[in-house]
């Protein structure tokens, strides 16, 4: 059972109160984009063994969306942060690097 903190309402609760909704920080593509860009936006997903950034929703709570940094190998939750960002904030990166010294943050997609 994951313990997750909602940065919107400040509640820390078990995962049954939340719902995961897949990869965070997707760049949207719409009219005018190429087929490759659109396919990538709609279907291609990061599926890492290790550090993963995800969108979550506080479904049985405040109902708001936020992001969670999590390890898919150990189920460790590194922290959660606001959904109003294009990249993970520095304090989350620091927390992950503290726990996973080998891990390095990817440059944000152009």
């Amino acid at each position, binding site marked *: 059972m994951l313990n997750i903190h909602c940065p919107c309402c400040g509640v820390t609760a078990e995962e049954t109160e939340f*719902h995961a909704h897949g990869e965070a920080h997707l760049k949207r593509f719409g009219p005018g984009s190429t087929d*490759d860009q659109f*396919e990538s936006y709609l*279907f*291609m997903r990061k599926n890492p063994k290790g550090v993963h950034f995800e969108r979550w929703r506080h479904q049985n709570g405040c109902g708001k969306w936020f992001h969670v940094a999590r390890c*898919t190998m*150990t*189920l460790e939750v590194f922290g959660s942060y606001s959904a109003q960002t294009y990249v993970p904030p520095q304090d989350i990166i620091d927390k992950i690097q503290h726990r996973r010294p080998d891990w390095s943050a990817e440059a944000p997609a152009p």
Partner: protein
Amino acid sequence: MKKYSVFAVAREAMRHHTGWDRAWRDAQPKAKYDVIIIGAGGHGLATAYYLGKNFGITNVAILEKGWLGGGNTGRNTTIIRSNYLQDPSAAIYEKSRSLYETMSQDLNYNVMFSPRGVIMLAQTEHEVRGYKRTAHANALQGVPTEWITPQRVKELCPIMNIDGPRYPVLGGLWQARGGTARHDAVAWGYARACSDMGMDVIQQCEVTGVKSEGGKVTGVSTNKGDIACDKLGMVVAGHSGHLADMAGFRLPIESVALQALVSEPIKPAMDIVVMANTVHGYLSQSDKGEMVIGGGTDGYNNYTQRGSFHHIEETVRALIETFPMLSRLKMLRQWGGIVDVTGDRSPILSKAPVDGIFINCGWGTGGFKAIPGSGWAMAELMAKGQSPLTDAFGLNRFQEGRFIDESVAAGVAH
């Protein structure tokens, strides 16, 4: 390979069973093969077997990072059915189901295929409409299924409570020729047959890199050294995305944990398979007497090979209403496997963007039933570059919008 038969058993009984050979050779890698298959689970071994049997390609290595059949092949609930909605799905799953019927004879290995019948319960009005539609589609596809009434469901499975307050049984989609098989035996039988054809089944050989030159695959790096090949088949279910990363392409796949559990063994109580998709519960009784229960997936990407306890609770809580006798049973074991789920809940059998690499993945939560059909089609794809069974399952379908949408048709169950 010595043939298994009643005479072999009688002969060995006379000499203290000292004459049995190993079922397959414990091979070490050669420098080069015509074809390398990554993943010695059911799908990988079946691919190798049909490459040899149907196309005479036997200079093949099957690499496995753990032990043979130790991934999802040994972790599923062994349900076999082919009552899918879309035509391409019905074609490959029905091919697969029909191959299961003769598999024990083909492989000279008892896979204990038991066509005991599968019911998919309709417990909401939505499911009633959905399954009636599927029954009509199956009639057109030549897959024998029928829509049955709640009374018929009760006759087929007397331990079921069909008028529960939350999840009443409104009918079911019945496939009389569906059933179960012994999952380990499927992997072992294929491995024995592959080894007999001269193929190398190499266990504890983890692929650490994929090598290519000028857009064409040349081999793989492993913890047992580099191995060259002309063609490479990736058949690794949950770890497909990881492997595709090594080869430098992406897949429309996310890996999640799916779990199952078994009860203590009891006397025979049900002789069919029941799938209750509304409550994410699948139930059958094994030959040992255990009630085998499959649950839903965890809702997030995960490689842990174990499931969340609250998902077990959800599954069992809901199943108890339909199967009240389950409430008295102790559960013995629980385990999880990593399944590779695509956006349309249909598999990918395709050439990869790198020349010479073929990929077979995305079977998601229902790969076991597809093992022989998937191997048959994948072997044809790898040998000839094209197969009528795999045409619709290409990677390009996501770009072209030709989805084989089984997610709406079947909910979570596959």
